[in-house]
């Protein structure tokens, strides 16, 4: 029998965002807490009832129905309460028993739910909410992340995450933000924020090696689902939306070949390229074509182009590192970050050799911050190892192993240290 807890975890990721979005449409953003409580309570019911009676045929439909009924109860109890405002046209019919059930049914229609999720995504990315609070809220309300998981993704404490969530809800309570797709003038900047958090979510799934396989896949799926929503709505079909979608397709295409069945990391040179998902690579290149309009080149365009170079190469040795280096140089000019700098140094190492790569790392900006990244130490270890500086190489690999929280990464680094001794 399927494990109820595992299934509800999976469904929570998959459905809680939709449920919160519809419930927020019903109760208003000022009552986000009510929406979240209903979802929480629905899942608590699901766990206890499913354990006794077994899992229903269509668990998502079950969850939606229970949430719907809970929402009806709340409306019946609170329709005259000052906390809830049912005065606008969409919500007015919720106050009459003649129309409550029918209206509730209509509000949960599958084809509307997608747009609700999109509107909710934009509400989470309201310009008056700080970027980190936006991302925190998206992960919590739309992607069903726990505070612990968000804390891990941001390398911060659960306490900080809770405070961020509290502040954002407080903002919603005061401003009573309407759920809507932003106007044309605002659309670009607000979509950027949405894309940013979608990519963060994706990376959490793609790069984290702590989480279980099921959770990792959910993260990747969720991120791609959210981005796909943006590609499908005519108002949000911006070039960078398609570019990010392409980028995620190219990455996701390779995700299966990155791990052994035991969950250990396989490095790019050793991956079995026949395991790559060529359907996804094909979808990715279609999205790439759709991304080719407008006159602005986003980081997603360049990152997608880099990922595509890797996908195109028949083998590691046939990788066009020259092209990849050029793309990284372009990327660093548009938007430099520690990770892109490090990736550029990898390309330098493949094109010009380890000595050049070492020199380029010497001049890297914000070295102090860089030293907190395990990837920086891991790359330095690799460079020194290629230069046959075993002592330095060992030192850097050890630093890297100390800094990473991932057991799979630690294992690879240990293997590299052992290889140095031979």
């Amino acid at each position, binding site marked *: 029998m399927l494990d109820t807890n595992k299934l509800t975890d999976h469904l929570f990721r998959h459905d809680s965002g939709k449920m919160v979005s519809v419930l927020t449409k019903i109760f208003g953003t000022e009552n986000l807490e009510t929406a979240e409580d209903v979802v929480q309570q629905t899942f608590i019911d699901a766990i206890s009832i499913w354990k006794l009676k077994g899992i229903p045929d269509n668990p998502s439909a079950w969850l939606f129905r229970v949430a719907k009924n809970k929402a009806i109860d709340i409306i019946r109890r609170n329709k005259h309460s000052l906390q809830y405002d049912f005065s606008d046209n969409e919500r007015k019919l919720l106050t*009459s028993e003649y*129309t409550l059930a*029918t209206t509730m049914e209509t509000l949960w229609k599958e084809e509307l739910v997608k747009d609700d999720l999109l509107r909710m995504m934009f509400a989470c990315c309201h310009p008056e909410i700080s970027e980190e609070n936006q991302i925190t809220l998206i992960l919590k309300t739309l992607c069903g992340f726990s505070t612990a998981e968000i804390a891990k993704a941001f390398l911060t404490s659960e306490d900080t995450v809770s405070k961020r969530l509290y502040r954002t809800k407080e903002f919603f309570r005061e401003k009573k933000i309407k759920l809507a797709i932003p106007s044309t003038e605002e659309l670009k900047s607000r979509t950027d924020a949405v894309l940013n958090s979608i990519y963060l979510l994706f990376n959490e799934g793609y790069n984290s090696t702590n989480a279980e396989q099921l959770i990792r896949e959910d993260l990747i799926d969720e991120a791609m689902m959210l981005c796909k929503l943006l590609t499908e709505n005519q108002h949000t079909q911006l070039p960078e939306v398609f570019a990010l979608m392409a980028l995620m397709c190219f990455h996701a295409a390779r995700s299966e070949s990155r791990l052994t069945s035991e969950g250990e990391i396989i490095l790019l040179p050793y991956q079995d390229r026949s395991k790559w998902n060529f359907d996804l690579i094909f979808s990715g290149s279609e999205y790439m074509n759709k991304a080719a309009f407008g006159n602005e080149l986003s980081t997603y365009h360049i990152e997608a182009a880099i990922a595509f170079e890797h996908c195109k190469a028949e083998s590691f040795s046939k990788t066009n590192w020259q092209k990849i280096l050029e793309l990284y140089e372009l990327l660093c000019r548009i938007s430099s970050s520690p990770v892109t700098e490090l990736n550029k140094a990898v390309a330098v190492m493949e094109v010009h050799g380890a000595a050049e790569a070492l020199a380029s790392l010497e001049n890297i900006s914000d070295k102090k911050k860089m030293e907190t990244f395990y990837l920086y130490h891991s790359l330095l270890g690799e460079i020194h190892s290629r230069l046959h500086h075993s002592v330095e190489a060992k030192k850097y690999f050890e630093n890297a192993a100390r800094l990473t929280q991932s057991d799979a990464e630690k294992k690879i680094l240990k293997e590299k240290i052992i290889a140095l001794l031979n």
Partner: protein
Amino acid sequence: MKEYLLLFRGGDGKNLRQSPEKWQQHMQRWAAWMGEMTQQGKFVGAQPLSSDGKQITGTKKTVTDGPFIEGKEMVGGYLICKASTIDEATGIANGCPILEFDNGTVEVREIQEMTM
């Protein structure tokens, strides 16, 4: 704009409920009717009423149990809407799905302003 009270009598909800599908369709027509009123800003409120009740009468405040009158005479629900004239209100009432039943009636009454 004046306000009008629409009183619903008759109909056969009990029988209709035997078929969930027919019931749902019927209630969708209520939602469509009231939805149009809402879009025009004319809907104020509406509720169906249970057939149980109490009645208090006179200075002695004698309490008796309902039902008070025969089934089809009993008020089964109400709606308050805005309209400029009694004719407009009657026009609105004309779309009420209770009139899908032969014994269904809608009584249209203007809400009166009380003068001191």
